[in-house]
């Protein structure tokens, strides 16, 4: 018990700071991947064959590439070799790289989640939109997507949960988030290793469980009555 007390005396103040980093990564990458996911989904349902091909190619390429590799491409190739930087501040630069990598990767899953939502919208909705003279984009924006997104809340929630946990991969881009702190703590306090693991497991549960509850509630609440 005493060893636990000293553990939290040593690291207690750093744990919320580290998790706060994961939350920031989650929120920003959620926005980025959602926006890109909507665009990709529009590509994939568009009447233009070449756009559909681009959307399909993106999803298959990115979804099947490990996130760690995407993160490393950003840090080692784009920054290391091509010398592309987003900020002069070293930490901020890598943070931006991590957000972009997470966004690009999860956009492929967002796209597919949204597309599954599009499949919940009856064909007749699109036909009625076309019949009153709406083109593809206005019909998508005003009629299809508002209904599709409500039907896609649960799979979008799944993607958000995966994203939250995948923020630990930002460690590969030297972002000081929870898993980095966990490694440090294990290194210096191997005597309470199980307690350290449990601490971080519970920490992630505290972040992720509300997302699940919220999306379940929202998908019931916002369901389109037919």
């Amino acid at each position, binding site marked *: 018990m005493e060893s636990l007390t000293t553990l939290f005396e040593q690291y207690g103040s750093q744990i919320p700071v580290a998790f706060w980093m994961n939350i920031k990564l989650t929120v920003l990458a959620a926005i980025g991947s959602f926006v890109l996911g909507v665009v990709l989904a529009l590509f994939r349902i568009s009447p233009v064959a070449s756009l559909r091909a681009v959307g399909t190619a993106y999803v298959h390429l990115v979804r099947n590439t490990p996130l760690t590799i995407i993160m490393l491409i950003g840090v080692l190739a784009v920054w290391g070799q091509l010398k592309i930087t987003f900020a002069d501040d070293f930490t901020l630069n890598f943070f931006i790289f991590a957000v972009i990598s997470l966004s690009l990767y999860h956009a492929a899953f967002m796209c597919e989640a949204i597309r599954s939502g599009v499949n919940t919208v009856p064909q007749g909705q699109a*036909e*009625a939109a076309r019949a009153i*003279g709406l083109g593809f984009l*206005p019909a998508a924006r005003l*009629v299809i997507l508002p*209904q599709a997104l409500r039907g896609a809340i649960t799979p979008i929630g799944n993607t958000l949960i995966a994203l939250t946990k995948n923020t630990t991969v930002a460690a590969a881009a030297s972002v000081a988030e929870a898993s980095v702190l966990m490694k440090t703590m294990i290194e210096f306090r191997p005597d309470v290793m199980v307690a350290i693991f449990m601490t971080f497991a519970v920490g992630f549960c505290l972040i992720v469980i509300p997302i699940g509850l919220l999306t379940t509630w929202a998908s019931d609440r916002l369901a389109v009555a037919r």
Partner: protein
Amino acid sequence: MTQRTPEASAAAETDALIQLQGVNKHFGDFHALKDIDLTIPRGQVAIVLGPSGSGKSTLCRTINRLETIDDGGRILIDGKPLPAEGRELARLRAEVGMVFQSFNLFAHKSILDNVTLGPIRVKGKKKAAAEAHAMELLERVGVAHQAKKLPAQLSGGQQQRVAIARALAMEPKALLFDEPTSALDPEMVQEVLDVMVGLATEGMTMVVVTHEMGFARKAGDRVIFMADGAILEDTDPESFFTNPQHDRARDFLGKILTH
């Protein structure tokens, strides 16, 4: 037959509003429309009859390009050929309203928003003007008091009347009805047909795919009987019902009129 103003009848004889010229449609190997030539004059109410699978719905849907047609055929609305795609098609499509079997009201929008969406987004009408016009139309089809509700809160008959109001809000030159009463409970059929008879009497150009023989006789100027993707008979309702020329037509009438 309906009572029409002399002006409407005169116009009907001269003025071609919808023209189909050599229209063919294949679904894979299935030849759904076979070399259709059809002219609907302004103000005419054309009833399209035929057994299921005869191509009557497809015919209706090709007129505003919800179905593409095979190369070589042409569809003209008010003398202008319908383009295959693009912004111009979207604009021309709005000139022909469509009423669907399954209503297809926008499920996430209120009744009022369903009716104003097209006028505001396609025709660029001001919101207040669009809403005032929409309320007039909803009043006319008898659902104005439901304007704030969502489609799922209305009965089928009410939804279909809203769908007619939505089509009318675009001030179309013609209306297409694709089996408008087939999905309705029997007691709701009449309220929808009453609205359609009203439109016919006012001289709206209509193409109506239906099984409602009473409506065909009462409001129709012309009956087009289709079988296997081709037009077999094209005549006035009285002649069609009393003296059909083809065996297929006699057979069809025998099956639907004996009950």
